[in-house]
């Protein structure tokens, strides 16, 4: 299973683009990278998934370089409601979410 490493916390002002990078050096050939968001007192919520290059949906973009040893979740123009913990997962079994990155959006 791919072990992931993310920054513990990040701060950003409202309206800015936020990039959260996750490293997954031992990701397997057939592993996808998945990102989840968790608000306080709620269960995690799926944001986006990718295998390589770039994936975009209505919420975020996910950039994965050719070597796939890292990925970057990009949140465009964050608002206060984007304050949450963001988890990066490698592999498909969703075995462990790690500690995630706590994003604090500042007015």
């Amino acid at each position, binding site marked *: 299973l791919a072990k992931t490493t993310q920054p513990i916390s990040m701060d950003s002002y409202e309206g800015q683009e936020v990039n959260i990078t996750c490293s997954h050096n031992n990701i397997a050939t057939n592993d*996808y990278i998945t990102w989840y968001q968790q608000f306080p007192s709620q*269960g*995690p919520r*799926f944001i986006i998934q990718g295998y390589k290059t770039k994936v975009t949906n209505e919420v975020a973009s996910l950039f994965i370089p050719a070597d796939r040893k890292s990925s970057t979740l990009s949140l465009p123009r964050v608002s206060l409601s984007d304050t949450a*913990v963001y*988890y990066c997962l490698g592999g498909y079994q969703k*075995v462990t979410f790690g500690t995630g990155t706590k994003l604090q959006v500042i007015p």
Partner: protein
Amino acid sequence: DTAVSQTPKYLVTQMGNDKSIKCEQNLGHDTMYWYKQDSKKFLKIMFSYNNKELIINETVPNRFSPKSPDKAHLNLHINSLELGDSAVYFCASSQVLGDAEAFFGQGTRLTVV
């Protein structure tokens, strides 16, 4: 209509007691999970079931016993509760095993005193 619902939302109980947490999903998914989130917010899988069959059983004390009466339900029974069992327990489901997108319940905050 809540997709994944678990009850109760809060549970306070004494050490040594036995308790159950119920989970139901109305999404028609094949796979259901139980996760434990401790005080440091580390979220780890405990069990996963696919079509009522146990697929993943992580290193969890055998005081924890999941039961899946049908595809839509996965209950968690805990015997002889200990202080270290205090945590938030999340139930989740996904359409099939290996599906990236899982839907989580609101969580059950268990406090053992």
